[in-house]
């Protein structure tokens, strides 16, 4: 399956591995890129030295295109923005804000900028600023989420911009891939499914929890803070929700309570104090495979779905 996204980025399959803070490092990103998708290193809240090392390690393992995901709320955002331009990484994806003020420098460095957009307004704005494509990510996803869901968001973003649209949120198998293309997307981004990839270096406990999770295993916290997060239900999310409901807890205290929880889950597998961010599709993610096996299976399934569906049309 080949779409305009493949030609635009020089990749074999129109699929991105979503940037996951503390999780998608060079090991996973290079494996996905080698397998023909676009692997993405997450900069998260990490300092520039860490990100530079990840870029170099990725380049040592693959000659194929890869991306860096920049979290715009990171305390190091200015330095990371300068770093990716200096390193001339092939693709930059962004999340948690408006990337427009950095885009000129990135475009001058020859970087393809592909922001995650939560609304048609933001999609139009980044189109004007020179984005190569946009990622329309629905609230089914894990981690920080927007208000709209994939089914509603993707077609509206497709109508709003002339750019290639990558659908994200709620996709974990070939059915989801096929559905995303039917909504008008020409590519997909998956996080949770790649989190359990053999090449992903996240803590084993994190993988086990996702493999065991069912349909109702995730929940959203942090609405009071204005940036909701989807994660697996756990002692941490339970306590967070309690704190959130407690009106005497200030926003600062609440932020402090959540701080470091993803790292504790991803690096230490801390089942008590960790926040295991994951998408609603966790219930569909049942086996650990290599990135190559995942990608090939997804597109074989999607192609079969398209052929089946064609039989419905006279």
């Amino acid at each position, binding site marked *: 399956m080949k779409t305009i996204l493949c030609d635009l980025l020089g990749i074999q399959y129109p699929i991105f591995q979503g940037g996951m803070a503390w999780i998608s490092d060079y090991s996973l990103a290079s494996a996905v890129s080698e397998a023909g998708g676009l692997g993405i290193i997450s900069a998260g809240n990490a300092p520039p030295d860490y990100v530079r090392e990840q870029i170099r390690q990725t380049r040592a393992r693959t000659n194929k295109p890869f991306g860096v995901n920049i979290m715009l709320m990171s305390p190091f955002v200015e330095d990371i923005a300068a770093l990716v331009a200096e390193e001339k990484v092939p693709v930059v994806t962004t999340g948690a804000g408006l990337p427009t003020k950095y885009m000129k420098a990135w475009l001058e460095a020859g970087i393809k900028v592909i922001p995650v957009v939560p*609304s048609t*307004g*933001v999609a139009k*704005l980044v189109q004007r600023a020179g984005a190569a494509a946009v990622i329309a990510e629905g609230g089914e996803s894990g981690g920080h989420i927007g208000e709209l869901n994939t089914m509603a968001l993707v077609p509206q973003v497709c109508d709003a911009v002339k750019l290639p649209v990558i659908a994200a949120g709620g996709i974990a198998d070939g059915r989801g891939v096929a559905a995303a293309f039917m909504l008008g997307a020409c590519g997909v981004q998956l996080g949770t499914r790649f989190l359990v990839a053999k090449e992903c270096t996240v803590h084993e406990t994190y993988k086990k929890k996702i493999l065991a999770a069912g349909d109702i295993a995730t929940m959203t916290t942090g609405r009071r803070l204005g940036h909701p997060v989807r994660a697996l239900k756990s002692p941490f999310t339970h306590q967070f929700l309690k704190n959130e409901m407690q009106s005497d807890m200030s926003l600062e205290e609440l932020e402090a309570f959540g701080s470091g929880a993803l790292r504790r889950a991803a690096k230490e597998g801390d089942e008590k104090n960790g926040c295991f961010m994951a998408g609603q599709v966790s219930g569909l993610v049942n086996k650990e495979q290599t990135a190559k096996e995942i990608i090939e299976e997804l597109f074989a399934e999607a192609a079969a779905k398209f052929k089946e569906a064609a039989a419905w049309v006279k």
Partner: protein
Amino acid sequence: MTLEKVTNLIAEKKELDPAAITAESTLESLGFDSLDTVELIMAFEEEFGITIEADETLQTVGDLVSLINSLTA
């Protein structure tokens, strides 16, 4: 002049009484979250034929008016 236009557009978007909006009103207090603000700014760009670089310093209606004035001057 600009204040009136800006106030009317905001009032229209959020179905508010224009008289209740002053230069000191913050966009947040008028019910605009970050995504609403992006939409609003794009509406002003169309109305005034300008390009606005949205950033965190835009807090009040007055901020918007002076920015628009500086861009249309």
